[in-house]
């Protein structure tokens, strides 16, 4: 049954198609609109101010229906813009008349969120981007601190939908376009884990059967898995440079992965250091079975103990809770399955090469006799 599936071609085509699909969707889908920059970024309570906002991928000029802007503090106090002037699709001038009694305490500064929304583009926010300085007018206005008095002239900010109406990937301030790397970084680790899992299964099978083919499959899946680990590290490193500012930030998830890869390098070294075939197969199978749960501990358990930058670790929420929106999923799940199938295809080719080499070796031995 399994043999027939492996020999058939449909799963290879499925893999290729899924990877192609995820590449297309992953690279061609535009990013959702987002706020890039604002100026000026600070204001004083009691002032009137005009803020110029630059966005990306928005359609404020061509589809202005329902366009509104506001400054808000922790989603509790909202001040709507008094005047809104659209300069282009991605540039807006907003004016605010800021009430003087809506002021932080003297000497302190509050950080306001800048919010924009339209029916077509959905809800855009740049969090904690506008500094609000305390009121300093001459008239003896009674100043309530923000925390103690509810703002009077605020209106709730009504938005038709939170996300844009068109098919797009979510916009995040640190990620920007690099959110697409999800399909090239995360999936590599899934492919690697699948291959290592196959490897440990075949190592167990080898110990039971002593069949040489099982050993070849175990070894080759580790080798291909290491290639995918290398790709995962490279894509991750580029992503880390872009989002966290460092090629190799001191993150337990990264270090754990590095240890896991070293574990499997040691497996390859162990294989190469042994010359006798059966001994090599047996001892490396034993080591492989030993390494697999350790790799699991290193990748899955250790990063959860200490603080980590990765989602799902060190108290960070996992991707599924809020980061991975439904549009990303459309490309992410096919990418996972597709790359896993491709990795199995590569492994299959390598195993066939190894089998042919075995046959040729046997023929050479026979002909020399």
């Amino acid at each position: 049954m399994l043999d027939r599936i492996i020999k058939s071609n449909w799963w290879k085509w499925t893999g290729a198609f899924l990877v192609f699909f995820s590449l297309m969707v992953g690279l061609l889908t535009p990013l959702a609109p987002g706020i890039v920059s604002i100026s000026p970024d600070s204001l004083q309570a009691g002032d009137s101010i005009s803020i110029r906002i630059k966005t990306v991928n928005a359609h404020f000029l061509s589809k202005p229906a329902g366009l509104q802007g506001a400054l808000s503090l922790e989603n509790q106090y909202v001040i709507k813009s008094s005047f809104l002037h659209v300069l282009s699709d991605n540039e807006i001038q907003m004016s605010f008349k800021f009430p003087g009694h809506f002021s932080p305490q003297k000497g302190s500064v509050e950080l306001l969120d800048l919010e924009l929304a339209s029916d077509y583009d959905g809800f855009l926010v740049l969090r904690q981007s506008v500094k609000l300085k305390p009121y300093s007018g001459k008239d003896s206005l009674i100043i309530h601190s923000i925390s103690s008095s509810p703002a009077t002239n605020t209106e709730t900010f009504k938005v038709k939908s939170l996300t844009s109406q068109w098919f797009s990937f979510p916009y995040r301030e640190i990620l920007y376009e690099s959110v697409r790397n999800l399909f090239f970084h995360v999936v590599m680790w899934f492919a690697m884990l699948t291959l290592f899992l196959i490897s440990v299964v075949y190592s167990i099978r080898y110990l039971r059967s002593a069949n040489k083919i099982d050993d070849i499959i175990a070894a080759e899946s580790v080798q291909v898995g290491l290639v995918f680990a290398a790709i995962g590290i490279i894509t991750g490193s580029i992503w880390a440079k872009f989002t966290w500012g460092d090629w190799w930030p001191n993150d337990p998830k990264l270090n754990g992965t590095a240890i896991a890869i070293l574990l499997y390098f040691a497996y390859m070294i162990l294989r190469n250091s042994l010359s006798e075939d059966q001994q090599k197969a047996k001892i490396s199978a034993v080591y492989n079975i030993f390494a697999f749960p350790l790799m699991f501990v290193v990748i899955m358990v250790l990063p959860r103990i200490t603080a980590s930058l990765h989602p799902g670790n060190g108290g960070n929420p996992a991707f599924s809770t809020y980061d991975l929106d439904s549009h990303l999923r459309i490309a992410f799940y096919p990418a996972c399955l597709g790359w896993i199938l491709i990795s199995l295809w590569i492994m299959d080719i390598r195993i066939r090469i190894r089998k042919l080499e075995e046959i040729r070796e046997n023929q050479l031995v026979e002909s020399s006799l």
Partner: protein
Amino acid sequence: MAKNKMGFLKESGILIKKEFTLEWRTKTGIQSILLYAVSTVFLCYWAIHKIEGEAWIALYWLMAVFSALNSVGRGFLQESSAQQFYYYGIASPYAILFSKMVFNGLVLILVNLVLLFFYSLTLGFPIKQIFPFFLCVFLGIMALSGAITFLSAIASKASGNLSLLAILGMPVLLPIIFLVIHFSAGTLSGESIGFGKDILALCMINLIVPSVAALVFPYIWRN
């Protein structure tokens, strides 16, 4: 078949006793490792003179790991094949593996107590929370001894020298070292932060390593 009647624990107990008797007769193993540990401490003292906090902990675990690699590493390597053949004839693989792990763990704990004594004498003792620290030392040493014992079994079957053990050992030991350093760095400060996760993770390693080792050891022990 006498060995079938004997329980696993009894068998292991006899084997552990055998290890201690053998060690007691010559004492070379423990003496050499004590010499190694103490001279490393003095080397550090001459080189550094003053050390604090995290560096103290890192240095301590480095010394602990390398003395463990040196002493436990010989666990399977030092026995002659005739000796091994004899033990394998009379005992179960689980008892052999388990007794080696426990014996090595106990020896290492003794060595580490001596090492810690000299280390604190020369370079101070910055640990504020004594009990969690020694719990960490105990769990960490047991995990190290378990992993190295099993790896030395693999290395002895493969080539019979220590260099392969160093190659196989470091990646396997890194997570354990990471855990113990993280754990013991927490004991530096006086205020009690929860060690639950660290203890849990170390206990997990202490369970996983021997059980996986026991699963696969019967396949290589007679080679």
